[in-house]
């Protein structure tokens, strides 16, 4: 391989290498296939990649967008996680990815970008803090509008006239999809035996953000947490392939990130760990939303809770 492949993606938080499903799909696949990617995390600097077309893979002056295309590109470079799959398993992969896109993606988009509580208290502040001024005022809103548009255009057909009806339908579909995935996974470690493949990357990419990100509105998260094998699946991949993340650093392999930013990331992660811990304590009283705790100062205790929380 001549020059290193560089992946521009959204950064991580809440113990995830990336909070953005599509970035996470590519990162997970690269880990599974052993492809050396230099991660270029979008942060609050003008030099970092911008825009809504994330993730982008750049290699030798070509840039590839969209997870499926990036994965194909990696396969052409001989980084293939699906060598051991039979033809039928390859077909299954395609079918389950279609299932995820049709049934789960609308609800994931809605949870992140459309639900007003989640968007205002979590998604918009998180993404805005990683985009430089003045784009931070514009891009999150644009991404939110695009998500809403996608949901309405693909799912908002008659007789679902009001947004409430559409929401009810997409969450119902998403819960059914989670149940199907849980049934399909059963007790095996990954979807096709003991080695992770493309399908695992996709499922992990879509599920992990739902599972880990602390949202005020958690209807899909609560459903996911009841499906213990899917949670175990996410924890296994986080523990087995993204272990460095437990220390609170954003993804490894980026010498471009300066020390200040690392400190900041650490601080943010400590804070979120603390919130997680507090939140665990308060779980019995659901009226306490996590965002009410953000005013607390981060303390050392955050570190203990992080290892405790992330161990599979």
């Amino acid at each position: 391989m001549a020059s290193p492949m560089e992946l521009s993606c959204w950064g991580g938080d809440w113990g995830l290498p990336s909070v953005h499903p599509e970035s996470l799909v590519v990162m997970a696949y690269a880990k599974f296939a052993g492809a050396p990617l230099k991660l270029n995390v979008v942060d609050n600097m003008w030099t970092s990649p911008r825009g809504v077309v994330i993730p982008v893979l750049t290699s030798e002056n070509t840039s590839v967008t969209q997870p499926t295309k990036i994965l194909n590109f990696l396969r052409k470079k001989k980084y293939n996680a699906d060598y051991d799959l039979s033809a039928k398993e390859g077909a299954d992969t395609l079918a389950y990815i279609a299932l995820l896109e049709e049934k789960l993606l609308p609800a994931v988009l809605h949870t992140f970008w459309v639900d007003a509580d989640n968007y205002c208290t979590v998604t918009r502040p998180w993404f805005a803090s990683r985009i430089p001024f003045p784009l931070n005022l514009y891009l999150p809103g644009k991404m939110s509008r695009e998500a809403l548009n996608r949901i309405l255009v693909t799912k908002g057909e008659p007789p679902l006239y009001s947004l409430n009806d559409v929401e009810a339908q997409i969450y119902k579909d998403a819960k059914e999809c989670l149940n199907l995935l849980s049934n399909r996974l059963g007790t095996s470690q990954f979807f096709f035996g003991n080695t992770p493949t493309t399908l695992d990357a996709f499922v992990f990419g879509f599920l992990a953000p739902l599972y880990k990100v602390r949202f005020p509105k958690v209807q899909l998260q609560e459903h996911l947490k009841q499906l213990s094998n899917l949670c175990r699946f996410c924890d296994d991949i986080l523990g087995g392939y993204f272990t460095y993340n437990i220390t609170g650093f954003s993804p490894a392999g980026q010498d471009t990130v300066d020390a200040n930013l690392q400190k900041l990331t650490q601080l943010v992660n400590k804070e979120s760990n603390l919130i997680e811990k507090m939140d665990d304590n308060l779980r019995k009283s659901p009226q306490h939303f996590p965002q009410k705790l953000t005013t607390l100062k981060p303390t050392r205790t955050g570190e203990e809770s992080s290892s405790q929380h992330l161990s599979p």
Partner: protein
Amino acid sequence: MSLVADAFVSQIAAAEAWPENAALYQPLKGEQILLSDNASSLAVQAFLKMCNLPCQVICRANAEYMSPSGKVPFIHVGNQVVSELGPVVQFIKAKGHSLSDGLDEVQKAEMKAYMELVNNMLLTAELYIQWCDEATLEEITEPRYSSPFPWPLNYILVYQKRWEIQRKMKAIGWANKSLDQVFEDVDQCCQALSQRLGAQPYFFSKQPTELDALVFGHLFTILTTQLTNDELREKVKKYKNLIDFCRRIEHNYFEDHAKDTSAGGMQRLPKGPSLH
């Protein structure tokens, strides 16, 4: 629909037996219906035949505007109107007929996944070819879609529908795809279906399920419809087991009714080849 409404509908549905005068509505067969609508209609017809439920096919120029979801086909059973395959399957299940009851949980998940694959790739590709490929739009889609309507309504309706489909393509990221990429997607989808089917008579061995009905509807329509060029059909023709699969379902479920309804593609477009 809320859970209560769902439960209510299934209660009502369960109470009534399948009536003699059940009807399936679709656009005019000869001069109006489009590839994607014909595929969906054929899928529902195949499903009903597999369930052994008699249903009369009625062609109406305004079927699209009669349908509760704005999509064809829809069935009219007793005093209920249900449109599209997914809801029809649920409705029929509430009536006590189901093709997928014998499957275990993993197989059910697999069936749903493959159905989404067909919807996600084949159906979207059909819509793309009809409404976003200039040649097909001009030669086939426009005259057929607008045929029952007078000027200037014909132009307005075509424009409106085209705008709607293009908006959808943009939202799902297909707007920038070239026709070749779309054909490649179709090929990939057919390859997956062919590999999944293997040498079995149906996708889940001996008994047909709603997946078989859906795949049959789309593939049979693609195989028997004359478009501006043969590329789409050639993609499907490469897979011999899929062609055999279409023949098998046609033979088992449509043969004796061939005159009145069903294997619409063939009569609809004179240039379309027969499967025999």
